[in-house]
């Protein structure tokens, strides 16, 4: 297990460097003036421009620039916004909100996704299964921002069950609706994955053997079918936590949630590329780390993996 952890961790290192290099390269080494890119095409005060040049060390050779950028990233020295705030401080304020939102969305998709998926998988081909399957396809097909607007309009405005927009402190109860919107598409994937996994395992030889041992139907389902089927689902959910934070950009924009996605959204609209780069870099790191955790989780859940 220790070896496994170590090996996965070592594999992570090139990905981390590669991904940050990619982001950096895209912003600073593509044709055109990077300062113009960072300004979002808008005219900029000379002082701001100078600050940006210093922040990204644009007078240095590329590899030095990248090295300094990495150093800045690790030390959370992420530069300043147009209004002169430290980007790291802005992110530190926004991040907990997004984390809360992502965790709520994750809880939502886990509970309902696994529940519906298990029932559909156990009753493959029945009415419930077909209904859930079609519904999940529809959910995947509708873009999140449309789902967001519709739910905001119906639940928030017309029914008045929830506040259509989230207030500054982003309390838990106001985040329920955005979390549902954020988690809906993943919910559909969780349902489909659980269902496929369950119905595949139902035909496994070891399930037949378990039945032949005289176990009750309930025990066969819980101990042998569920335990084995949920391994891929749990790993999907783990990886999804990272993806949810990235996907929060649309949801937070619609509901005006003061999270990291909204920060990114606004930075894009105002052309504050320093913030964009910083936020994306952080999200990439989160995503990579989440995937590492998932790999380790997989090894914990499936004894066969540990010895590979």
């Amino acid at each position, binding site marked *: 297990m220790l070896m496994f952890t170590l090996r996965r961790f070592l*594999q992570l290192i*090139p*990905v981390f460097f*590669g*991904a940050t*290099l*990619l*982001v950096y390269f*895209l*912003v600073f080494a*593509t*044709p*055109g*003036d990077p300062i*113009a*890119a960072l300004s*979002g*095409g808008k005219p900029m005060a000379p002082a701001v421009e100078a600050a940006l040049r210093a922040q990204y060390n644009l007078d240095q050779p590329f590899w030095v620039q990248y090295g300094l950028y990495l150093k800045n990233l690790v030390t959370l020295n992420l530069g300043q916004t147009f209004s002169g705030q430290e980007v790291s401080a802005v992110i530190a304020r926004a991040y907990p909100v997004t984390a809360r939102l992502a965790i709520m969305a994750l809880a939502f998709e886990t509970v309902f996704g696994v529940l519906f998926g298990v029932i559909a998988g156990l009753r493959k081909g029945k009415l419930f299964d077909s209904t859930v399957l079609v519904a999940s*396809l*529809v959910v*995947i*097909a*509708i*873009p*999140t*921002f*449309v789902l967001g*607007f*519709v739910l*905001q*309009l119906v639940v928030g*405005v017309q029914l008045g069950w929830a506040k259509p927009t989230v207030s500054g402190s982003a309390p838990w109860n106001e985040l329920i609706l955005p979390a549902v919107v954020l988690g809906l598409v993943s919910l559909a994937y969780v349902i489909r994955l659980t269902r496929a996994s369950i119905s595949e395992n139902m035909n496994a030889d070891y399930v037949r053997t378990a039945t032949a041992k005289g176990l009750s139907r309930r025990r066969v389902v819980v101990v042998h079918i569920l335990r084995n089927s949920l391994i891929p689902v749990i790993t999907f959910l783990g990886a999804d936590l990272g*993806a949810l934070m*990235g*996907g929060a*950009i*649309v949801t937070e*924009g619609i509901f005006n949630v003061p999270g990291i996605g909204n920060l*990114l*959204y606004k930075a*894009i*609209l105002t*052309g504050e*590329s320093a913030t*964009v*780069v910083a936020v*994306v870099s952080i*999200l*990439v790191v989160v*995503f*990579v780390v989440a*995937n590492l955790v998932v790999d380790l989780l997989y090894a914990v859940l499936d004894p066969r993996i540990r010895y590979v």
Partner: protein
Amino acid sequence: MSENLSNKNEPSNLGSKSLRLGKTSTRVIEHYVAPLEETPLAAVDKVEEGGAPLSLWAEAWRNLRKQPLFIISALLIVLVVVVAIFPQWFASVSPTSCTLNDSAEGPRPGHPLGFTLQGCDVYARMIHGTRASLTVGIFTTIGVLIIGGIMGALAGYYGGWLDNILARLTDVFFALPLILGAIIINQLPLFRDNKSVWTVVIALVTFGWPQIARITRGAVIENRSSDYVTASKALGLSPFGALVKHVLPNSLAPIIVVASISLGTFIVAEATLSFLGLGLPPGVMSWGNDISDAQPQVRNNPAVLLWPAAALSVTVLSFIMLGDALRDALDPKARKR
């Protein structure tokens, strides 16, 4: 052989103990022979000569034809493609001749879905928006198939250091979610100043190929060590020849399934980018742009937002359903008889 088909009781175990290993008893065991007329004997391993030959694709097609999911999605896709090519067949009103007099008007004869804030016909814009979305979806899919397919096939087939390098490269691009990556590319000055369908396609291809690469790699690895590949090498076929002639054709099924579903998600991604203002230029008529434009009025005039959204969703849904139907028909587990 017909000497004695009648039932006959005989003691079974006389003098057999030393030969058999299992347990023996003193019970009398009846010797039964089924009447030959009830159990006719067929030739060993007889070759069935009836029926038309059926390739795997023909078999998949025969299965598909019977699936309602496939029929519905295929018809919808055909409709969407025709609309994209010949929008004027479906909407006589010009989508760009807008008068502010009609601003946010409701439906009236000739204008079944009403008007946008700018006074444009919602129905006409919905019909004419098809082309941009479909173009992005199709060309992005072609792009990721070429890049991801080549990367995945080479990594999976040759393995070793090449696989290691390509696998890490795939991981690097995979670490950036599609939308985030596309956002970064699209806000580069080069892209921001030259917005078009093609900038969106390039952005989506850049971050969309890893998924196809992974699927292709897996399928190629599964097939590269099969006996028919070894056999063809023993026949004198070069390794690259075996890849092209045997491995790739057998790896196509899962790639086609994923490509079909991806096509749908690329259309959604385009709309999301346009919604964020980083997709198609405002001049290009597209569902994403129209949804984005309608957003401020969503509370007063939701229809303007819902119609392009519905068109978008139905299109995406039909590609995802097609992928689902193909997966069932091409399922490798169902392929062995």
